[in-house]
């Protein structure tokens, strides 16, 4: 394991990054000891987005919680209610209709496309490459339009309910959706080619913020961060849920573990997500989209997990005889990946701080709840 402990000496001085910093989409606070332009030590001070949601979940009914968990974070806002609902369905032994399983995949993968493209765009922004940033964001707008036209909101889909999904696809929306995907495919392919060859991007991301495989295992990192460090782990593959076992899933891995690898994994997954949605549209079975009424959730406990855009998301739900759950606990991918920043930032340049932090696609609002 790499040693990441450093001592502060006379030549170092401390710069604060955050808590409100333009380069960081969200408030977080690093104290960084630097020697010249090189990072000597990083201290992460967390808690700026702690809203006490775990406490709130025990004050809301299970049906309100589906929406509350959606508001934990807007970038993975479909994964939270989906996993929560999966846990509740497990406790109640509910059989979710087949059509709903496919519709859940569609909602999840659309969020994945938008979320990954957002991260890729921000990378370009941090590199100072505004045109590329705008271009990727424009491409992402196609996914945003899908969300708004099919689900009714650009961020929070409200797709999932306990026992199924709340939305349905009719002929019009299906045609719209597949048309939009056809538009996305060449654009994403072009973006992949750009990130693979562009000198400005390569110069700032290759060999930067490396996380070695053994360090990645020690930190227990998940999602694209793990897969970029050569760890072949994807919840959709190892513990299939929804309809993933019937879909052409591909897990992408790279071995370099640098900022660029993580970006390329995200792009590849956005591309795969399109194929998954297309497969869903092709195989979409008929039938109801959700169980009727509001099923009772009896006393019990369950663990459920899914692959959010940033990695494994796990929920623990414990219910008793009240309409409110007794305890809801979840662990988001960034919770695991954050700690790995210590390894990635060691001995890097100040200029790369934001780029490296962004490379784990940090979701502070998820992590701090």
């Amino acid at each position, binding site marked *: 394991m790499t040693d990441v402990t450093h001592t502060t000496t006379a030549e170092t001085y401390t710069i604060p990054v955050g808590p409100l910093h333009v380069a960081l989409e969200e408030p977080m606070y690093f104290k960084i000891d630097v020697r010249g332009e090189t990072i000597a030590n990083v201290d992460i001070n967390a808690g700026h987005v702690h809203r006490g949601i775990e406490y709130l979940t025990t004050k809301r009914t299970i049906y309100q919680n589906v929406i509350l968990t959606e508001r934990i974070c807007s970038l993975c806002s479909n994964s939270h209610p989906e996993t929560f609902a999966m846990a509740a369905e497990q406790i109640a032994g509910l059989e979710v209709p087949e059509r709903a399983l496919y519709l859940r995949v569609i909602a999840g993968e659309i969020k994945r496309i938008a979320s990954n493209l957002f991260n890729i765009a921000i990378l370009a922004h941090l590199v100072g490459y505004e045109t590329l940033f705008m271009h990727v964001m424009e491409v992402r707008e196609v996914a945003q339009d899908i969300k708004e036209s099919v689900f009714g909101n650009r961020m929070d889909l409200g797709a999932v309910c306990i026992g199924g999904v709340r939305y349905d696809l009719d002929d019009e929306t299906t045609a719209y959706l597949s048309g939009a995907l056809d538009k996305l495919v060449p654009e994403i392919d072009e973006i992949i*080619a750009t990130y693979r060859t562009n000198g400005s991007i390569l110069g700032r991301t290759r060999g930067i913020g490396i996380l070695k495989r053994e360090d990645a295992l020690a930190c227990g990192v998940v999602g694209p961060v793990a897969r970029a460090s050569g760890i072949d782990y994807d919840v959709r593959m190892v513990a299939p849920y929804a309809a993933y076992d019937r879909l052409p899933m591909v897990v992408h891995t790279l071995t370099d573990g640098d900022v660029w690898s993580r970006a390329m994994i995200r792009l590849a997954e956005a591309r795969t997500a399109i194929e998954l949605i297309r497969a869903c549209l092709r195989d979409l079975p008929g039938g109801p989209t959700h169980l009727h009424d509001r099923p009772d959730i009896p006393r019990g406990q369950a663990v459920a997990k899914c692959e959010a855009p940033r990695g494994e998301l796990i929920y623990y739900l414990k219910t008793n005889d009240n309409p409110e759950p007794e305890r809801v606990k979840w662990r988001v991918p960034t919770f695991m990946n954050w700690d790995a920043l210590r390894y990635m930032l060691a001995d890097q340049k100040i200029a790369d701080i934001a780029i490296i932090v962004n490379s784990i696609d940090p979701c502070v609002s998820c992590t701090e709840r």
Partner: protein
Amino acid sequence: MNFLTLLARNLWNGPSTEAFPFGPAVTPKRFRGKIAFDAPSCEGCKICERVCPAGAIRFTKTADGLGFSCWHDTCVFCGNCEFYCPTKSVHQTTDWHLSHTQAEKYSMVESGLIPNQVCVECGATALDTAPSVAAVKPPMSAEEVADLRGRCPKCRAKFLKARRAKS
């Protein structure tokens, strides 16, 4: 170098900027915007109040009847109310023009009133809610529903019981 082609394409195709705010903005049909309440079709079950995660919906009992209010400054536009409403008397419109000055903060409310009525049968004062007839078999005709509606909950139950006995 494929980037220069993108620049050229941008120049050639012209700006992709939307006309808004100088022109109209496109709103998708399914957009989940402002809440609208239709009092006459409401059954008064208050399920919307119970499933609203943000506490934006509140029913208040007044001298005139049962008041419905939804405060848009705390509503999260999730659509739970519409999804669980048995009659869809609460629904989301596509209206997103919600920005307002601070002075208007507390008037961003959608409200409605389910008025009181006098029961045609027993003369008691009761709410003029829509009767819950979706599960009634055989289905009721419009006249029957209107007839049922004029009664208080107790007399409605009696009415339905009598109808069941007949069929």
